[in-house]
């Protein structure tokens, strides 16, 4: 368990600057999730923390120590790859204790640690199998087991669940959360998945084009996004982002309102709109409507509300849930 601190990190590949200048503190014991669009530099950042990649400039500190120039294996970290990166010619047990064997840990202790990891991850019955004889979820557990036995101070995950199907992903998500609680370790986790980010994180870092847009607890980002980018990125369905003129504010460049914060009425409201696509999801109904002269607006309604495409609606954004952004995309003073 240790704090990870990145100070003025920059990274270029040849002429391409991926991370211009980045500072980030991951508190001791936190579960920090990095999210952002594809190519924004999440993996690069994680690889800099792991030591697989050297920053062009800046300092990496783990547990207060400067590890910028240390080998990956000397940093007290472990990493779980999206592809699992298991060794196909080794059994599950050999995969899990590979690092321990390299470190010449006595056989008895190795066995204890492997057995413990296998118990936590429900892999006890599979220790003698080869990775090719396992399901995707089991392979992912082996990869996690390999991390656990090294007893690292910091766990790094690069999209570890993205190769799994939806049901398995949900299950593994719960297991990861439990693992974090029981191990009490610092975890840094890269994902594309909104739900993973919101449910697992106690701190979310939203990145965009190599910069950090906002760092905060999940509900902070949801309730008070500091930039228009974060507003559009966090939450599903996406927040509606419209020009300020849509609510008659010339001083506002962009106004945002979440689909769940729009009241719908059949006969009166602020925006007259036409329903274009209605998605019935069971618990919710999501309506994509068009407001003449303003643009497309997505609305989320309770599942029992039945609507048909082509119907006319009246939409009213809830005033206290408006998010206002200036021309630079920064959050403006909250509406009273």
């Amino acid at each position: 368990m240790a704090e990870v601190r990145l100070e003025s990190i920059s990274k270029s590949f040849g002429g391409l600057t991926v991370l211009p200048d980045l500072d980030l503190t991951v508190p001791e014991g936190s579960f920090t999730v990095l999210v952002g669009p594809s190519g924004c530099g999440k993996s690069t950042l994680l690889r800099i923390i792991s030591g697989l990649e050297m920053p062009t400039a800046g300092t990496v500190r783990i547990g207060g120590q400067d590890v910028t120039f240390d080998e990956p294996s000397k940093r007290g970290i472990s990493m779980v790859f999206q592809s699992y990166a298991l060794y196909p010619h080794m059994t599950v047990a050999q995969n899990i204790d590979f690092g321990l064997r390299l470190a010449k840990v006595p056989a008895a202790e190795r066995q204890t640690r492997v057995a413990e990891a296998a118990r936590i991850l429900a892999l006890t019955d599979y220790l003698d199998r080869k990775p090719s004889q396992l399901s995707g979820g089991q392979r992912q557990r082996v990869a996690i087991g390999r991390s656990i036995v090294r007893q690292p101070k910091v766990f790094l995950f690069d999209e570890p669940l993205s190769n799994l199907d939806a049901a398995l992903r949900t299950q593994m998500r719960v297991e990861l959360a439990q693992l974090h609680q029981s191990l009490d370790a610092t975890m840094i986790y890269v994902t594309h998945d909104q739900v993973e980010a919101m449910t697992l994180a106690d701190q979310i870092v939203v990145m965009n084009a190599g910069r950090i847009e906002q760092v905060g607890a999940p509900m902070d980002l949801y309730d008070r996004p500091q930039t228009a980018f974060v507003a559009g990125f966090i939450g599903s369905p996406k927040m509606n982002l419209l020009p300020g003129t849509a609510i008659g504010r010339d001083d506002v460049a962009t106004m945002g309102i979440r689909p769940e914060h729009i009241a719908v009425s059949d006969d009166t409201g602020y925006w007259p709109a036409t329903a274009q696509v209605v998605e019935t999801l069971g618990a919710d109904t999501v309506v994509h409507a068009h407001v003449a002269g303003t643009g497309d607006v997505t609305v989320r309604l309770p599942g029992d509300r039945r609507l048909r495409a082509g119907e006319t609606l009246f939409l009213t954004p809830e005033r206290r849930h408006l998010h206002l952004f200036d021309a630079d995309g920064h959050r403006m003073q909250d509406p009273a």
Partner: protein
Amino acid sequence: MTTAADRRMPASVRMRRALTNGRVTAVLIMLPPALILFTFFVMLPLGESAWFSFFNWNGYGAPSNFVGLENYDRILNHSVFHIAVGNTVKIVVISLIVQMPLAMLLALLIYKKTPTNAVFRLIFFLPYILAEVAAGLIWSFVFDGNYGVTASIAGGLGMGNVFILSDPDWAFAAIMTVIVWKYFGFHMMIYIAALQSVPQDQIEAARIEGARRLQVIRYVQIPAIKPAIVVSAFFAIIGALQVFDVIIPLTNGGPSNQTHTIVTYLYTFGLTRLNIGFGSAVGVILFVGAVTVALFYQRIFMKRAQG
């Protein structure tokens, strides 16, 4: 491919399936040409030479002097044949313990895709592209006792004139050098292709686990490309059984028949001396040897490499 489900079906259903899914048609159309070519160009010549091997025949007219197993008897008791087999074994051993490790070392150095590596790959591969006879000629200049590179080196060391290729003790060592030089590039290419397909993630994971470069090679990369190594060793062995073109321009089997391989033995004692029956018998022995090696090798190594 026959799946488990196929096998559980009644025979009649399976037959109907096979007839209607086009597989039978495909076999009927595509098998005969291959079978005919194989028969005419492989089976018939093999059968013929097996037949000739029972005659004392100079290649003219029809073979008539039937001698039974006498040719085989002479070969198996011929000291030069023993040397030839010994040399072939030496080539196999050198291929396995010198050539393949060398190829592996170079492959590990240049398998990553960079422009510099591409240049080195080409350079190392050139000897393999070169015609065997040309390679033999080039090296006969190198080994020339009066003007060759080895002559200059020997002169520099004050050893006087060294005629490696006419020295019965050293001629075959020189030939094996040429063979290693000629064919390591081929094995290197096999390893390079295999190494490039080992996922980078596995190597990085090993680094995080604390593996040093040599440990990554030993525990991750080499085990991952084991099937390629097995195949390359197979080519090395079968190739050793066929060495011929390199030797003719270098030593032509001499001095005093010390540098023959099985094929140059066949050529020298069978073809150039017009003992076609004798040569055929050598060919049959070589063929049986090669098939035996291939079968055993497949049984023992190739199966295991797949599993």
